[in-house]
């Protein structure tokens, strides 16, 4: 006698189990249309493979030529560095320092030694 059975007419565990098995066999199967709908959802929501080219930022399509040049040179930081270098070159060109003029003359005449302008360099051995 099944211990869970409280009345003679109640089903036993074994009888209930047969009903569970019957229910499993008769499970409502999804229709083909329904399965297709689920698969369409899956495909619509599926992330695309990462091999796809990265999307072009909209900003790049609308920026001015100056902005494009600025970006190419590394932004405002790169642009300010470039401007500083240009200004320094201009000053040196207009007002050349005396030492630089002497060194340039030496180079042109083949007489200047680099060690003259770098204190202590002559004492360094390069023999390895």
């Amino acid at each position, binding site marked *: 006698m099944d211990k*869970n*059975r*409280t*009345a*003679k*007419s*109640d*089903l*036993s*565990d074994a*009888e*209930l*189990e*047969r*009903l*569970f098995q*019957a*229910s*499993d*066999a*008769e*499970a*409502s*199967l*999804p229709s083909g249309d*329904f*399965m297709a*709908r*689920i*698969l369409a*959802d*899956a*495909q619509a*929501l*599926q*992330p*695309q*493979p*990462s091999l796809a080219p990265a999307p072009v930022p909209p900003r790049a399509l609308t920026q001015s030529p100056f902005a494009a040049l600025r970006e190419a040179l590394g932004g405002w930081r790169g642009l300010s560095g470039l401007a500083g270098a240009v200004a320094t070159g201009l000053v040196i060109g207009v007002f050349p320092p005396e030492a630089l003029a002497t060194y340039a003359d030496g180079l042109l005449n083949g007489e200047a030694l680099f060690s003259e302008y770098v204190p202590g360099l002559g004492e360094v051995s390069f023999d390895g």
Partner: protein
Amino acid sequence: MAFDAMSQVSDEALLVLYANGDQNAARSLTLRLVPRIMAHAHRMLNDRAEAEDVTQEALIRLWKIAPEWRQGEAKVTTWLYRVTANLCTDRLRKVRHSDIEDAPEIADGAASAEQILIAQARAQALNGALARLPERQRQAVLLRHIEGLQNPEIAEVMDISVEAVESLTARGKRSLAQLLGKRRAELGFYDG
């Protein structure tokens, strides 16, 4: 990867493949999961159209969470049963105000008993009786005795203790035994 090679791949690995854009993984997961979830939702709601809606919504949530899925934290089926259970509960609450007596009657097979197989009659009778159980008992009995989940997994799905699962399934089975015992002859059980 060839579709027939997917049979050895776990649900969790398939979900990662899906998130990486593998279309075979989407198809394989659909074929693998939808029949189980659909059957469970149908038994919970006793309404095919509602069960389809719940199944579709549960799967949409799965597809959406796929890119964030972290392997090893949960089983896909456990997660899906849990989402399905919550969706079913929401729908059942909307109709809870109706009298319990409005629940579908156990199929009266008097007119068609000779036309249908005994297995179909039993399945219909069981579904009718399940519909009369309190929702949590019904869910626990379905997960344990029809879906075949183990008690710890059911506890995770239902967010209760294993002891509570055991209590719910025991009470549910006792109620089913009483309800269906009244129709034992009709169900082919003559030696009560």
